[in-house]
């Protein structure tokens, strides 16, 4: 089996990214569901790069004419999902920050001298 340079680079990048996922999980900076999600993403990338025929099979199953379109559509869905997750996260921070700021203010008054 002969690999082209692009495949080697893509696999190396995916392995690097996957290792970052595992390190973040080991440092307790990522929960188990995020570990599974991101592991599935990067393992999927490695499989798709090393065995392009899998995306062909997938394209036939999904009724998409070109295998490369499966990857493009999958990436777009993934990106939308990530944007949604980020939106939820930012909304949560936006909601919690003023509550925290106000609680700190109310609990630490500089009382007027009488």
């Amino acid at each position: 089996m002969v690999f082209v340079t692009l495949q080697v680079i893509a696999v190396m990048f995916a392995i690097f990214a996957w290792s970052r996922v595992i390190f973040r999980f080991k440092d307790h900076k990522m929960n188990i569901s995020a570990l599974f999600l991101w592991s599935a993403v990067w393992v999927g990338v490695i499989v798709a790069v090393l065995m392009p025929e899998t995306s062909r099979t997938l394209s036939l199953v999904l009724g998409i004419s070109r295998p490369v379109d499966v990857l493009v559509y999958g990436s777009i869905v993934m990106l939308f999902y990530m944007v949604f997750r980020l939106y939820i996260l930012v909304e949560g921070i936006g909601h919690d920050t003023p509550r925290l700021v106000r609680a700190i203010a109310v609990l630490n008054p500089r009382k007027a001298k009488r």
Partner: protein
Amino acid sequence: MHAKKITVVVAGYNEERAISDTVKGVIARGYHDIVVVDDGSVDTTGDRAFAAGATVLHHIINRGQGAALKSGIDYALREGADVVVTFDADGQHDPADIDAITRPVIDGTTEVALGSRFLREGSNVPPLRAIALKGGAVLMHVMYGVRLTDSHNGFRALSKEALRKMELRADRMEHASEIISEIGRKRIRYCEVPVNIKYTTHSIANSKQGSLPALRIAWKMLLHKVIR
């Protein structure tokens, strides 16, 4: 001496030029419970307010006038206030009007008294400002069923009972319309009281009188109306 505890809450952001006179003016009228919320100012607003005799709460970052007033109101209620007066930091409001605006709340004829600059004879409201405020008043009536002559006046007196009924969430300038919305939604008794607004160079510069902020507030009012 007032039988009920009245606390004046002032939200201040970079108001070092005016805050000292504002606090001293309120205290000079006999209102010693004054809480200034320094909303993440980068100047000496908090220190000057404290030196002038106010209790100061400090927001570590700027969160907007609505959030600052909420902090001040929460603190005032914790400290046992019966009536909370919201008052601008920039010197636009006249401390001499506090007696009149708190009177109907103290005697129980109303739960919220809202200041109106149009009820006093010879008011000096700039014409464009007057048009925007009157337009806002029409919008408030249509959307919330609250009939007002002045749609955006930060001078108010609110009973603790009214404050406990209200769910205030808006952090920025739209908090003013949110208070009106809550009056309508919760059927809180209200009245308007004539107040004097002093248009100084400083206050005019501070009040963002362009049409864009007004449109933004109107847009957020519509959004809140749809979401709620």
